């Protein structure tokens, strides 16, 4: 089995809004990411997928649980090790309009990380800027330009170049293509795939567009209300979803083929996502689930292996 680069154990992130109101954005999530793979994380808005990504990166301090990077708990890192971790673990955000400082030139944007991490001499850094720009398909002559002079797709390339410059091992892609036009999305996805091959990168690919996740990922995790409810190999998950939520989610995706779309059988999912502030005992999906039984009220927050690493958190599979 391939080496695990990232392991998350019962990771939680709660936001305390006031004395009695707790938002459980991430609730005891356990998963591991293997070196060189793309792990897709899907779920609807508010399910905690972005918070999970940010907690892994260290933007949020976890409320509970641990993150192991290359075998060591990142909570035990000293200042220097943490800085190194910050270099290896890069993140790309959804909106390339707000994630790049509008007052910095391309060169400054990309060299910033190199300076912070003290990588190379001034000359070498300059070399590096040109190198990564070329790699992401931007014209190296544009180093003196500002972000507003680029289109959305080009800005996302710029964000990728910025992450790439510091030679990361792991990139968290937080909805990197959602804000882009359809004809540009594919370009960015192809670029990410190519860079993964060249540099042996590992990706955590967070998205709500399931068809793109299916295309890019090796394994996929599904989140619902802060919990990881299902995790499996991509093909297995899309062909054979086990959790009632995943089944409903997959069946609601429109298919861009009229004869299939007209016959698409949807598993209806009643109602809407409850407020994230609500404390639901047991399974958080039970309020909308068609297989609900009394057992769901005391479901253990435990993923069950139903074969070949296909994990599900549902009383239907717990015994």
């Amino acid at each position, binding site marked *: 089995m391939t080496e695990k680069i990232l392991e998350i154990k019962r990771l939680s992130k709660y936001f305390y809004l006031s004395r009695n109101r707790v938002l459980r954005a991430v609730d005891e999530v356990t998963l591991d990411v293997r070196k060189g793979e793309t792990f897709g994380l899907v779920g*609807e*808005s508010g399910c905690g997928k972005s918070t999970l990504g940010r907690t892994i990166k260290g933007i949020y301090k976890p409320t509970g649980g641990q993150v192991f990077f290359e075998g060591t708990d990142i909570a035990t890192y000293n200042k220097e090790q943490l800085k190194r971790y910050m270099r290896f673990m890069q993140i790309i955000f959804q909106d390339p309009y707000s994630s790049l400082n509008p007052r910095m030139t391309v060169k400054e944007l990309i060299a910033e990380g190199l300076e912070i991490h003290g990588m190379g001499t001034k000359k070498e850094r300059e070399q590096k800027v040109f190198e990564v720009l070329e790699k992401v398909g931007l014209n190296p002559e544009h180093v003196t330009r500002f972000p507003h002079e680029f*289109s959305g*797709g*080009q800005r996302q390339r710029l964000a990728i170049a910025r992450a790439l410059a510091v030679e990361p091992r792991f990139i968290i892609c937080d909805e990197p293509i959602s804000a882009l*036009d*359809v*004809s*540009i*999305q*594919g*370009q960015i*996805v*192809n670029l990410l*795939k190519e860079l993964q091959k060249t540099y042996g990168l590992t990706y955590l690919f967070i998205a*709500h567009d*399931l*068809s*793109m996740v*299916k*295309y890019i990922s090796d394994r996929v995790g599904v989140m619902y209300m802060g919990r990881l409810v299902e995790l499996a190999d991509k*093909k297995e998950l*899309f062909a054979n979803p086990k959790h009632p939520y995943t089944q*409903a*989610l*997959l069946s*609601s*995706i*429109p*298919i*861009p*083929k*009229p*004869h*299939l*779309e*007209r016959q*698409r059988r*949807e598993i209806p*999912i009643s*109602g*809407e*996502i409850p407020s994230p502030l609500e404390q639901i005992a047991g399974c958080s999906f039970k309020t909308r689930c068609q297989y609900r039984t009394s057992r769901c009220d005391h479901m253990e927050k435990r993923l069950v292996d139903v074969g070949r690493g296909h994990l599900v958190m549902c009383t239907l599979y717990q015994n």
Partner: protein
Amino acid sequence: MPKNSQETLLEVRNLSISFHTYEGEVAAVRNVDFSLRRGEVLAIVGESGCGKSVSTQAILGLTPIPPGEIKSGQILFKGQDLLKLDDVGLSRICGSQISMIFQDPMTSLNPTMKIGNQIAEIIRQHQKGRSKRDCIREAVELLRLVGIAEPETRVKQYPHELSGGMRQRVMIAMAMANRPEILIADEPTTALDVTIQSQIIRLIKELKSRFGTAIILITHDLGVVAGIADRIVVMYAGKVMEEGLTDQIYYAPRHPYTAGLLRAVPAMTDDSEKELRTIKGVPPSLLNLTPGCPFAPRCDYAMKVCALQEPEYHYQAENRVFCWLYDQRAAEQLAKFEGMKDRWA
């Protein structure tokens, strides 16, 4: 589409709209034609900036003038040119015979008014003399119609108390309040999650078959409209690139842009790991348009003429396509494109 419903309800003819900005004139919509027949669903598909929203906003007089300017064209609704109507005339049609829903229901609803009052207002606007209580009662029925649970409680609530999906249902209830003949939906599901999206699309389908409302659905997502549209108009850089019946557009696209757009989305039904076939380059700036076909710089089948002169529309049955490949002299290049399509299929 039923054969007896061929009557044209709305016709947009030769519409051109520009916006005057500091940088110059942005030609957002250029000589656009399309028509809507009674009871059908017409989808207008395209990427951001292609002019799909601008051209439909003009139908209800929502184009901001200035900076906008309607350079030419007619919008005929039952033979009457909507562009010639004054505000009073438009407001009589707007919300009663033609209504519209938008992408973001939060900004389209009044945050300081109760849901019921907002719906009642639109009924009273067009059906003078009805009592307020009567209208509120009808608002409850409308909310029930669009699938909102406990409508009696909901009418007394404010928009912020509802979820995104429910707000969009309220918008649809308001749009349907006066049983319009045309419903224009501008990206109605883009801001919603996929499970909610399919509920809203199903609702629009139900309303269409129940009331026979003709619908213009504007979207960037070819998946969303595959199951609901009768006809599709594909726009790019302010131009209609192709128009045709739904199946033809999906299975036998005639424009290289349509074909490229369809190939750029990985299909859920496909397990292939091959590199995505993307459209190279980026959409053109509408500020300084070059002569010729706007898609030419990104087109794999572009010929010399494509960059020099605009093509003409080539018609075939229900389809029209804005492309030089269908000129008699380009038969060889067309064969190449057809060959490529076969390999994709």
